[in-house]
């Protein structure tokens, strides 16, 4: 799965999401994703991660996606988090 496909898949499940996808192994199966969407409001971390992870169950089962690490934020949270993250990137 390439980066564009990963992004498209998340958009299928969470159409209003703002998404950043990074591959961190140099190949095409280790992904780090940032997903920002109002859909996460009021949801605990486990529920948030399930929303994203469930979109990749098939590819993870086959090994096509080997790792999927993520950050999930509402737009309000991201407004607070973003400046903090920028300090380290």
């Amino acid at each position, binding site marked *: 799965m390439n980066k564009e496909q990963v992004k498209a898949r998340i958009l299928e499940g969470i159409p209003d999401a703002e998404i950043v996808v990074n591959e961190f192994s140099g190949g095409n199966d280790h992904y780090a994703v940032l997903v920002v969407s109002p859909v996460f409001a009021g949801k605990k971390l486990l529920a948030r991660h399930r929303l994203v992870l469930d979109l990749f169950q098939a590819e993870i089962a086959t090994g096509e996606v080997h790792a999927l690490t993520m*950050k999930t934020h509402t737009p309000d949270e991201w407004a607070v988090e973003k400046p903090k993250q920028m300090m380290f990137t």
Partner: protein
Amino acid sequence: MNANWKDKIETDVKNNKVVVYMRGTPNQPRCGFSARVVRVFNELNVPFKTEDMDSDPDLWKTLSAMNNWPTSPQIYINGEFVGGCDIVTEMYRSGDLQKELGLT
């Protein structure tokens, strides 16, 4: 799903405050995400039980089915599945993990 593993998991998570299903062992983790979770619990000085998910494909399959969670590591606290490395790391950062463990 393997019935023996399911029984063992249910028993272990009941009898241990923290159980980490990981790749490898705390001293020799076979994956960076597993290593990070081990480091978090070590830093908090919290005892935890681990099981190597690579030791038996049936263990991985059983955990995946029980939690509908396909990846490693998988962490239980107080008998409940809490998620994987991202979630434990984020809970540690926010202080929710320390609360959950009764450390604060």
